[in-house]
């Protein structure tokens, strides 16, 4: 893509200030998914949005900061594979696929460490969704141009 955008000082400074808070908020939504509205998809979307913001502001300045293609596929697949692996844990203990009660410690409802596999899956989904959103955005942005080579 031949488009070049100038360094915009305001954008960069504001982004630097804002990004940590956006990501922190995303993490909060993610980790408290079983206690308050939120969860893997919404938290992942917020974190993914922050990454998009980052790549929009700094992309043209530092191209090397874009997530490289294999990395994003790795995040994708890892999230999904953790999910499946959690399902198989239930199978190993002699329960059905994706069993929670009886396999994982459920904890005290209402505390942060509760919910058994729900917390694990939420984190896996969060990683997956944020990776997905970013890689979809970047792929559509580059629109199939050959910039970074074929995977």
């Amino acid at each position, binding site marked *: 893509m031949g488009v070049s955008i100038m360094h915009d000082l305001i954008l960069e400074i504001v982004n630097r200030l804002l990004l940590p808070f956006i990501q922190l908020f995303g993490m909060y939504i993610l980790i408290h998914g*079983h206690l308050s509205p939120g969860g893997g998809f919404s938290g992942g979307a917020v974190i993914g949005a922050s990454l998009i913001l980052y790549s929009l502001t700094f992309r043209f300045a530092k191209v090397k900061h874009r997530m490289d293609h294999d990395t994003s596929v790795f995040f*994708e697949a890892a999230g999904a594979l953790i999910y499946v692996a959690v399902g198989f844990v239930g199978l190993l203990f002699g329960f059905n696929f994706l069993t929670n009660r009886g396999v994982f410690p459920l904890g005290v409802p209402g505390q942060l460490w509760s*919910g058994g596999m729900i917390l694990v899956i939420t984190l896996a989904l969060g990683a997956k969704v944020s990776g997905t959103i970013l890689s979809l955005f970047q792929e559509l942005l580059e629109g199939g141009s050959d910039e970074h080579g074929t995977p």
Partner: protein
Amino acid sequence: MKKVLPVLVLAAIGILLILTVAEMPAFGDSNAPAHRGVMEKYLRDSAIDTGAINTIAAIILDYRAYDTLGEATVLFVAVLAVTATLYGGEHHA
């Protein structure tokens, strides 16, 4: 003809849907059929069954976790599809 047909189709669908809306259980009715099915157990037992007090999280990640596995797969398929079509076609070979 090309202009009239969509209007006719839309009118038919619209009228059918409006009549259906008129027949539906009243909005917000606590005893509507939709609330007489599976809801009660979810609200009563989810904290004990799953350890999560957010009932929606309990439903999507425990009671119906298989659905969410499918949902994660849909996302995965979307990314694979986008990658494979944008970078895999013959158009830049």
